[in-house]
């Protein structure tokens, strides 16, 4: 039998680098040991047969919004809602169905990193294109990713880049590019913000199609001084310049640490940044996934609402788009405060305690009540009652039950649905211990 330490490392691997185990998977991984599990979880092929079998979402260029009282407006608005729904459930389904979930996990990480919201972009196609950019580069080279992102229609529009002109620079994009995307706060000066804004002038967005066009005449062609270097920059050369700085390696390592190891205990091993020397994201992710800190009991994390929903759905074999009323899934994600394509701001979503309020406890109970009604419970309902509690831990990828939760579960072994509901709401499942 695997030790608790071994269970913990594998459980964290599966819940943090993936989206939780599918039925039977955790036991198989335990039998093979951590190294074998890490080998599987930290290497994701570019294509995922299960997730890719979903095809593409029904999104297309809707053109400009018709006038408020025109005849076309109702059809336009209906189609707009349908596109957002299609896009949202397409992604939720991918997360649930992926065989190698690291790629979807990393796409989700980057969505929170380059956090762009549909709230302002208000067109599904540019959000989809950005999502594909993030997925394509999720485990690739960060220099390439950053280049593609500074040319991304949704991101530029979100941060007002399309109205950034030589005459009156808009600093929104330039500031966040350094503060939140490449270097980290206070690793640049205010003059750098003003100067880099000039480098980002001349990019115009056609929002509904997601096309970005560069207009040399509206671009500042003079020389600027950025972080002590004088030269002429455009978005691409600026991105390359920022990404090449050592602060970028430190910053990206800190962000991955924050989401995969601990948001409470800051990056403690600076040597990890060397894995990012060539800006190879996959190499850094592997180094973090195999770092001893992953096994440190102090580094527990709260599952965010998406983590919690997707891991529950994987265990219970629920495909979000096939749910009897998919709107309920959207509504509960809203109530819990985390809906794909709607990060709260450019800083992305919060972590840990933020998800442990009394109101989230309440919504989690209600949400779990729905999930167990539609989920496949045979992994425990097929077993004798006295085997169910331990099987539940293996099914869901839980390190160990506390005596408190064992007591609560003991009273419900006759009823697989109640048993599963309690497990999904238990501190052992809500927290990746």
């Amino acid at each position, binding site marked *: 039998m695997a030790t608790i330490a071994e269970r913990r490392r594998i459980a964290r691997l599966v819940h943090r680098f993936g989206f939780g185990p599918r039925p039977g998977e955790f036991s198989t991984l335990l039998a093979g040991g951590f190294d074998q599990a890490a080998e599987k979880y930290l290497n994701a092929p570019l294509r995922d047969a299960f997730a890719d079998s979903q095809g593409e979402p029904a999104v297309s260029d809707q053109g400009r919004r018709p006038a408020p009282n025109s005849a076309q407006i109702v059809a336009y608005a209906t189609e707009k809602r349908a596109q957002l729904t299609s896009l949202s459930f397409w992604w939720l389904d991918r997360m649930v169905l992926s065989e190698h979930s690291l790629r979807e996990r990393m796409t989700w990480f980057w969505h929170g990193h380059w956090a762009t*919201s549909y*709230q*302002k972009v208000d067109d599904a196609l540019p959000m989809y294109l950005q999502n594909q950019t993030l997925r394509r580069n999720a485990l690739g080279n960060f220099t390439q990713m950053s280049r593609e992102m500074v040319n991304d229609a949704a991101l530029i529009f979100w*941060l*007002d880049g399309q*109205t*950034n*002109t030589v*005459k*009156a620079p*808009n*600093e*929104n994009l330039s*500031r966040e590019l350094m*503060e*939140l995307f490449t270097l980290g*706060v*206070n690793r640049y000066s205010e003059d750098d*913000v003003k100067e880099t804004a000039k480098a980002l002038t001349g990019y115009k967005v056609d929002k509904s199609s997601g096309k970005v066009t560069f207009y040399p005449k509206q671009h500042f062609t003079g020389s600027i001084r950025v972080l002590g270097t004088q030269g002429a920059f455009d978005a691409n050369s600026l991105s390359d310049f920022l990404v090449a700085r050592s602060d970028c390696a430190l910053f990206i390592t800190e962000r991955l640490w*924050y989401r995969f190891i601990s*948001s409470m205990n800051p990056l403690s091993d600076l040597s990890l940044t060397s894995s990012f020397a060539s800006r190879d994201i996959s190499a850094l992710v592997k180094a973090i996934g195999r770092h001893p800190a992953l096994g440190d*009991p*102090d580094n*527990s994390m709260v599952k965010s609402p998406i983590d919690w929903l997707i891991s529950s759905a994987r265990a219970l074999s629920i495909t979000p788009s096939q749910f009897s009323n998919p709107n309920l899934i959207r509504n509960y994600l809203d109530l819990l*405060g985390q809906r794909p394509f709607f990060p*709260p*701001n*450019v*800083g*992305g979503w*919060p*972590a*840990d*305690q*933020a998800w*442990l*309020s*009394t*109101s*989230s*406890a*309440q919504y989690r*109970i*209600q949400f779990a*009540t729905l999930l167990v009604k539609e989920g496949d419970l045979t992994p425990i309902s097929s077993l004798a009652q006295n085997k169910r509690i331990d099987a539940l831990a293996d099914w869901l990828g839980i390190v*160990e039950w*506390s*005596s*408190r939760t064992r*007591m*609560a579960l003991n*009273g*419900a072994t006759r009823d697989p649905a109640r048993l599963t509901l*309690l497990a999904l*709401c*238990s*501190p*052992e499942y809500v*927290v990746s*211990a």
Partner: protein
Amino acid sequence: MDTITRRQFLKATGAGALGAAAMSLSIEEIANAAITRPLPLGTPILVVVTLYGGNDGLNTVVPVNDSIYQSLRPGIAYKPEDVLPLGENLYLNGSMSGVHSLWNKNQVAIVRGVGYPNSDRSHFSSMAIWQSGILGAAKTGWLGRWVESQPEDPLLAISLGSVLPPLLAGNKRSGSVLPLGGLKVPNGSLASDCMKLGIESRNDNLLQSMAARSMRNLFAVSSDITPILKAPAPAAPDLPTAIGGNAGGDTNLSQQLDIVAKLVTAGAPTRVWSVSLSGFDTHADEKGAQSILLGVVSQGISKFMSQMRASNRSKDVVVLVYSEFGRRVRGNASDGTDHGTSGPVFLLGEKVKGGFYGEQPSLTNLKNDDLAVTTDFRDIYASVLEKVLSTPAEKILGNWKGRTPLFN
């Protein structure tokens, strides 16, 4: 940055990890305390309103007749007929008629040019400075440290919403949070099963015990108290009926203030309340968006003050309104403004000595295109600590010497 709220702010500051864990209160617990140990009438109460995103001070307290203001802000400058006179050639944003009528009753102090040395233009860093009351990376909030200077009481300082703002974070003890919206508590056997999950276990790590506590709090209900909460918000009898009728429905801020009004009226033993409104990061199309938000702030506060008058607490309550920075003087090409430096801070209430404080930053003497800081925000905090919370400021603000004589 499109919108910033308290919850969102936590992520980038890492404040979720700072300080002591917040107690999540049930509204019933507070109502219960209001009945068993009500706050004595005459005890000062502070309500802090945080405007997230960086409110544009120049379009809040407007130098509308200044030709430099007009020339630097084509497209977003107000015209004289749009704004409300304050005196000293300054005018209030036209959407803030509620605050304006309190100003005319001498119940509003406007401190001009408030900030701190070497303004930080990151939303997250600057808000961390304002909320901690210390330059540099403090792990606690100024009111969190105040909570720790007082005898232990989870009801002393409460933030509305589900996440604790860094403002109320202390080292060992913090303020509490009160989730908005009613809680729908399970009943029957589901309730008794879930309640078992709310017991803390010896093997729990910190986060697991917090998860257990959040479950337990859900059931911490004393059912005989609910009438207070089900009752409508206290009436605001002396307001013209137009208020509330034209704002396009409830906003989150007015919901938050309504709950505060109910619980203050009921006698909650709470000295500090924290509420917030997001959306002030107006890089583009600022004029309409900001005036809607300021209208919400103004209507919310004037209604709240009216509710306080009806409940005999109006002499006790002081409202403090601030944002993490002002915005650049010159408009950008998107009819918006980028991150700037100083801005006005508002204090409202019958205790407040109405009028202007601090110098209006001059538009002819900009530093790096930005407004000068003429009052340090800690001057205001120090005076609030001493005059509203009756606590020596030295303990909380590290021997800060400056004061602003804001109170009667």
